[in-house]
């Protein structure tokens, strides 16, 4: 520790170079944190899911609906405590670009199944009592500047026409990972308004089970019940269902990892270069230090510590800025990724990476400095 001032003096010797190096490391780690946050935010749905909720859908895909008649049978299956259902609506607000999550749900069971949707009691009563009512997440309400009582026309793509919904409540999410960019409205309203031939079909059933340990058994029971019917089912935990969605996005995570590694590697090369230049310019000084009696090991430590400090400073700056932007400012990447939020692990991961970069980039110059021959070094410059 007593050599700290010596190291700092070295770093301040060329302020511009230290500043540029710290900045380039900060930039690399900022990008790293950003890409990792994209990945973890995509997975937010998985973390938000409840292990005691099962999702039942048509075995082929969500595109095919299941009959409403399944509801009563599902309720009788041992282990199931509550049955809810709904349809993915897939419409948009004003412009096809505004396609946030919209669900037509069975209002009677919805709040039992989704306790993380928090709604004040009077608003809930108003929502339940009106056929055309809807509730919207706080984030969405703020984005579009809606007020309670506003008419929110949603244009259907799966269910044609414009649906005149009235905002009766603004919900908040009980956990940060749950999605506030969504609106919910009455399944009954949609069902009554579509042509008779399409009525009484449900996109998804949600089952509440008593404990997570029963998930596999209950799923198997449901699927066995409908296995040989015209509309077989696929039942899985909400977590598995969400994970399936992410897997449909393809190898996004692989692509982001490739990009992230390339960035970190590129900046590491730049840093190694800088550290070597810095050591080379100080050949005389290092020789003098050794003449004064600094051991090879101490010189090695000094040079290595210098690069570690630079890397760590860059890491703190880059990860800190990312943390500030992606947590405090509620940045959503233009609404493309709801819940864009940086996790504390990402911050620590970034700092660890910065330390590794410092270690690797300091290794070569530190080694060269330790092996420096005093006489030769002093003669070269003279």
């Amino acid at each position: 520790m007593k050599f700290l001032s010596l190291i700092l003096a070295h770093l301040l010797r060329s302020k511009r170079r230290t500043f540029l190096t710290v900045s380039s490391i900060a930039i690399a780690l900022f990008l790293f944190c950003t890409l990792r946050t994209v990945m973890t935010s995509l997975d937010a749905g998985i973390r938000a899911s409840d292990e005691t909720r099962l999702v039942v859908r048509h075995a082929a895909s969500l595109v095919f609906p299941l009959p409403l008649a399944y509801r009563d049978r599902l309720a009788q299956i041992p282990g199931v405590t509550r049955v809810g259902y709904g349809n993915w609506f897939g419409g948009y607000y004003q412009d096809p670009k505004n396609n946030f999550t919209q669900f037509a749900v069975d209002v009677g069971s919805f709040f039992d199944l989704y306790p993380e949707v928090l709604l004040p009691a009077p608003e809930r009563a108003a929502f339940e009592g009106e056929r055309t009512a809807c509730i919207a997440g706080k984030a969405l309400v703020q984005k579009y500047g809606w007020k309670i009582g506003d008419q929110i026309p949603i244009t259907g793509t799966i269910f044609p026409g414009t649906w005149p919904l009235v905002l009766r409540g603004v919900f908040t999410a009980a956990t940060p990972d749950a999605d506030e960019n969504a609106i919910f409205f009455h399944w009954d309203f949609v069902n009554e308004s579509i042509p008779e031939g399409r009525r009484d079909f449900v996109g998804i059933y949600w089952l509440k089970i008593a404990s997570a340990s029963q998930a596999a058994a209950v799923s198997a029971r449901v699927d066995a019940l409908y296995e040989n019917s015209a509309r077989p089912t696929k039942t899985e935990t909400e977590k598995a269902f969400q994970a399936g969605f992410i897997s449909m996005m393809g190898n996004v995570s692989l692509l982001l990892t490739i990009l992230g590694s390339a960035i970190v590697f590129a900046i590491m090369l730049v840093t190694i270069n800088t550290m070597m230049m810095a050591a080379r310019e100080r050949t005389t000084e290092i020789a003098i230090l050794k003449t004064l009696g600094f051991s090879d090991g101490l010189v090695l430590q000094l040079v290595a510590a210098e690069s570690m400090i630079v890397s760590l400073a860059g890491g703190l700056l880059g990860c800190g800025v990312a943390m500030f932007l992606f947590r405090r400012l509620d940045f959503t990447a233009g609404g493309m990724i709801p819940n864009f939020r940086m996790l504390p692990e990402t911050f620590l991961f970034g700092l660890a990476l910065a330390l590794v970069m410092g270690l690797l980039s300091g290794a070569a110059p530190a080694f060269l400095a330790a092996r420096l021959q005093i006489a030769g070094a002093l003669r070269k410059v003279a």
Partner: protein
Amino acid sequence: MARIPFIYNVRNLAVRRVSTILTALGIGLVAWVFIFTLALAGGFQSALRTTGSSENAIVIRKGSTTELMSSVSREAAGAVLSQEEVARATDGTPLAASELMVVWNLPRKSGTTTNVVVRGVSPKSLLLRPKMRLVQGRMFRSGLDEVVVGSMVASRFQNCSVGSRLKLAGREWTVVGVLDADGAAYDSEIWGDVELFMPVFDRPVFQSLTLRLRDPSQFPALKKRLEADPRLSVEVKREDEFYAAQSGMMAGLLRALGLFVTSIMSLGAMFGALNTMYAAVASRTKEIGALRAIGFGRGAVLASVLFESVLLALLGGVIGCLLAIPVRTFTTGTMSFATFSELAFRFQVTPGMMLAGLGFSAAMGLIGGFFPARRAATMPIVEALRQA
């Protein structure tokens, strides 16, 4: 005004070998990331762009933004076929195909599952897409439990090679052939007989109708007449525009990601170039003083340092381009928001992207070299010569 010979810069870079290589590699990787993201977005877009033809029109239900959400009844399809703008096949029948489209969840070879587009087609479907060729096996026979698969499906999914049995809608189907559409979206689809698919998939209506126009310039008239007919309730779009529109959101997202990453990252690499060139100038103070003393002007020194920096960056750019060549063999799949199913595509590296990568590198060198060059040019001669 005399110019400092270029060979001076080349030799300078060669003398500082390690530093030159490290800086060039750093810049090269930035150029690589730049080309990589362009190739990703370009590949996705080109898969959908090359799918449609401007000679074809597609008819879907009014208000549906995608084929998946659309439905076209047999009656409506019949009415469309009788329009005079529809081209005729050699046997005089309309050159058009009513198709069914569903998505089906299938296991990838990696074990994860994803949705695949399953399309019920009629005999004219292949005629409407002249780029599609049968690369293996044969076409399915009408009325039999046979399907053909796109080349991307064949290579990426389980049970999808010729001869294997594939389970769809509770039945087993034999895969009898592989179709290749040269990178278009059809490569990610499974095709079978529409008349068999309709009862099996329990679908009473078609999803779309694709037709060849007798003359592409007649499209506006046909569109106007069909869309005005209240009994049909359809929308008519040019096929190429229909598919190009599907690529918009995803390609935009990929491009935005690429632009964001590369623009910030280039700043980091530029700082590296700045450091290198500052060091290059500092260690050559005496030399630069000497150059000025024997008559080279400020402009000549400025140009020389800038040139060296750009040369260094271009070296990096070339490395980036060389590293980017193998990228074209990468294949990936991502979800197309329009079909909720996987669209597999090959990364597309074009000479234009490579040139853009080189230009991008040169710009980094130019900006990174400017400040050190200015410092070299404005150095007082006497002091510079006096330096150790």
